[in-house]
């Protein structure tokens, strides 16, 4: 795009500059550093920008850096294919010349090797250390392979759209310079997370996005619930991060390296089912649970909706919360070596998917529904990883980023239209008043429900196929049930918001207005994405990363964009035993939507009747299975109680204060006696001096 144009121009005008700049070793760094630069400028001189240009300067700068970062990612992707094609060409030439010389098959294989697509590129100077302590060397190195590329495109691409959307959404907020600086900082850390070539670097990105999440959840920190939600997110994530740190340390202890590629190489040489590998995988998964809001650490994500809606879309739907899925997929070869860890990942994923989907059924806050939906879909991704379909998990991550960002931004547009109202019970009938928002939102709903040929259909279908391929009928059943529930609650959201008649007061109805183009543009683009990205065959593209047993069929010349396939061909690729699956999945989704239509458009009295009939079950769902209650009880009982009894009264008062005060008392007692030596008589002192001198001389003369 723009970058390619600049490259072409420079190669005409100043070839050495172009050659030095447009290299696979330079441009990805640029993608990483641009948002950081944007943050630095906004952070240091943000107020000056705001005063000079009155309104838009800060936001436009933030948008520009992220869009350029996206451009860099696109350039990287295009050139990666070029480099890959060259590599394959060289290999072919080598094979041909060997054949002409009459080498036999085995010798040929030994020299040319089988074609291994997309070996990871390590970016940066491996000889320059980031951390160097006593033999431990950690270079500041990035990793570039298809998985990184997909994540980079998601983060910077969806990130750009959300930045643009924020221009409109935050236009009236006096603190928008701070907002955009945080958003830029987040983009930097997220790119660092997905590009980092070793675990400590990944960890820095991981903590960085956690920090930005905290800052942005509590962006309106004068609101008590917002700052509380920020704290909750941060504290729950700490629990997960403890697991991540332990896992990282244990991985280093076991494999002697932090490098992600070297770890996956080292794992390949180990037998399956080692206890230590299971431990590493499970510890890292604790971290993933925290970041990606899986049971039992999912409680922070619904509360995180206190932040501005674009933040919910970017951080708490499209990118940051998928970091756990990314990490599990990145270390896929490690997980694949441990059946226990895989079972845990799949089990937690499936349980989370179902539990969160059922909670979403009874939520009345439009953003809360979407939040539980996100938790549920993340569970789906882990389910895919847990049955060994890492590529499919990443595929769902990829499609989910589009339609969930679309849904969040759409809900933001609804909230914007209603001047801040989030309760669906006070909406309704908005279909004709805000048609752009409605149509894009409808596409997003259909996509997440899994209506063909929209994006969600393909990825969800492949996850279900993955559970079948792994011979896990129970997981398949849970997945299918979740899919039905997903279709139901999303259709419920759509019908409650856009159908029927308006249920708010008259003044609110009068104020309903369509959002500005800065908000509608991203909505339309995301709707196009939600409708089309399912045709990109991401699983095949990222497959080489996971080094699975079966040979990768991908060819170098065909990149992401080359993988356009018809749905029928994709379904056929699943194998004969899953041929019926797309029809079943589609039918399930349609059934869910039909039920929602029945309940929330045709017979509006039915939901209340059912709720009354099944009082207990309804209460359980309303209380979100009591996770928050249990944690509150535990915290107030054991954490606060234990802290005050043990930490405060025993450790702090008795031990620490006791030690400090005891030292003082002891010094006092000793000096009560010692001060008597100070007589005040000059000749007394002189006598001591003389005695000392005599003793010293005596020692020197006789004792030595």
């Amino acid at each position, binding site marked *: 795009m723009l970058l390619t144009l600049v490259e072409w121009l420079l190669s005409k005008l100043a070839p050495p500059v172009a050659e030095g700049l447009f290299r696979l070793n330079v441009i990805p760094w640029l993608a990483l550093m641009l948002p950081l630069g944007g943050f630095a400028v906004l952070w240091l001189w943000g107020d000056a920008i705001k005063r000079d240009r009155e309104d838009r300067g800060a936001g436009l700068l933030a948008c520009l850096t992220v869009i350029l970062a996206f451009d860099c990612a696109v350039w990287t992707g295009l050139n990666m294919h070029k480099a890959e094609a060259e590599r394959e060409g060289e290999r072919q030439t080598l094979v041909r010349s060997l054949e002409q010389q009459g080498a036999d098959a085995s010798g040929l294989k030994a020299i040319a090797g089988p074609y291994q697509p997309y070996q990871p590129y390590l970016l940066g100077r491996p000889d320059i250390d980031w951390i160097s302590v006593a033999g431990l060397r950690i270079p500041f190195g990035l990793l570039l392979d298809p998985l990184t590329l997909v994540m980079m495109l998601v983060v910077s691409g969806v990130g750009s759209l959300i930045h643009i959307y924020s221009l409109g959404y935050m236009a009236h907020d006096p603190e928008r310079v701070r907002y955009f600086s945080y958003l830029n900082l987040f983009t930097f850390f997220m790119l660092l997370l997905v590009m980092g070539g070793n675990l400590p670097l990944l960890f820095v990105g991981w903590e960085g996005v956690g920090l930005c999440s905290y800052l942005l959840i509590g962006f309106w920190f004068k609101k008590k619930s917002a700052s509380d939600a920020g704290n909750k997110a941060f504290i729950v994530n700490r629990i997960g991060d403890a697991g991540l740190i332990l896992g990282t340390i244990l991985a280093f202890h076991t494999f002697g390296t932090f490098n992600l590629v070297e770890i996956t190489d080292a794992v390949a040489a180990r037998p399956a089912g080692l206890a230590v590998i299971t431990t590493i995988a499970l510890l890292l998964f604790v971290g993933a649970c925290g970041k990606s809001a899986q049971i039992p650490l999912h409680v922070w994500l619904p509360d995180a909706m206190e932040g501005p809606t674009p933040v919910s879309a970017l951080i708490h739907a499209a990118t940051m919360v998928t970091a756990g899925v990314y990490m599990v997929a990145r270390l896929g070869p490690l997980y694949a070596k441990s059946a226990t860890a895989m079972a845990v990942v799949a089990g937690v994923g499936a349980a989370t998917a179902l539990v969160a989907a059922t909670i979403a059924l009874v939520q009345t806050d439009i953003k809360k529904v979407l939040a539980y939906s996100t938790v549920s879909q993340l569970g789906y991704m882990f389910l895919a990883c847990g049955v060994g379909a890492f590529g499919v998990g990443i595929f769902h991550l990829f499609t989910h980023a589009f339609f969930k960002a679309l849904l969040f931004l759409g809900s933001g547009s609804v909230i914007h239209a209603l001047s801040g109202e989030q309760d669906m019970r006070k909406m309704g009938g908005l279909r004709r008043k805000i048609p752009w928002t409605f149509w894009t939102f409808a596409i997003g709903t259909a996509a997440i429900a899994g209506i063909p040929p929209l994006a969600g259909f393909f990825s969800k279908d492949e996850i279900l196929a993955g559970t079948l391929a792994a011979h896990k009928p129970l997981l398949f059943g849970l997945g299918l049930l979740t899919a039905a529930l997903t279709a139901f609650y999303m259709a419920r959201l759509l019908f409650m918001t856009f159908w029927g008649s308006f249920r708010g007061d008259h003044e609110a109805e009068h104020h309903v207005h369509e959002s500005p183009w800065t908000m509608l543009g991203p909505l339309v683009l995301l709707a196009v994405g939600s409708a089309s990205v399912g045709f990109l065959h991401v699983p095949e593209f990222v497959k080489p990363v996971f080094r699975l047993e079966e040979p990768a069929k991908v060819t170098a010349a065909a990149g992401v964009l080359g993988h356009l396939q018809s749905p029928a061909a994709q379904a056929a690729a699943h194998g004969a035993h899953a041929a019926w699956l797309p029809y079943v999945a589609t039918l399930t989704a349609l059934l869910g939507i039909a039920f929602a239509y029945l309940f929330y458009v045709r017979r509006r009295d039915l939901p209340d009747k059912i709720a009354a009939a099944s009082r207990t079950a309804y209460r359980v769902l309303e209380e979100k299975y009591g996770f928050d209650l249990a944690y509150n009880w535990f915290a107030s009982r054991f954490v606060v109680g234990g802290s005050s009894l043990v930490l405060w009264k025993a450790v702090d008062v008795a031990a620490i204060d006791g030690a400090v005060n005891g030292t003082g008392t002891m010094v006092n007692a000793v000096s009560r006696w010692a*001060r*008597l030596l*100070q*007589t*005040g*008589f*000059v*000749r007394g002192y*002189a*006598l001591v001096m*003389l005695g000392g001198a005599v003793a010293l001389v005596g020692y020197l003369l006789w004792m030595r």
Partner: protein
Amino acid sequence: MSGALAQPALILSLLLFTLGVVGVFLRRNVITVFMCVELMLNAVNLAFVAFSRQMGTLDGQVLVFFVMTVAAAEAAVGLAIIIAIHRHQDTLDLDAFNLLKW
């Protein structure tokens, strides 16, 4: 050559030093004590010179100059303190100056 001269000089030095020590301990008048300290310093000077001559080096003699410099400075500061104390206490009795104690 010089060994013969060194021994009497050292004996004299010892006598002077002992005189100084005894004076410091037995006398009460600050001025006298002060002069006894000077006596000790000069006894040491004599010993330095004697040794210097016996060894045939200049080290001892250089040290003597240092000691004399210190002694001069000490005399200046010491006498000033004595004058100040005398103005304050109206006495030169060493045992009266015993405020600095517990």
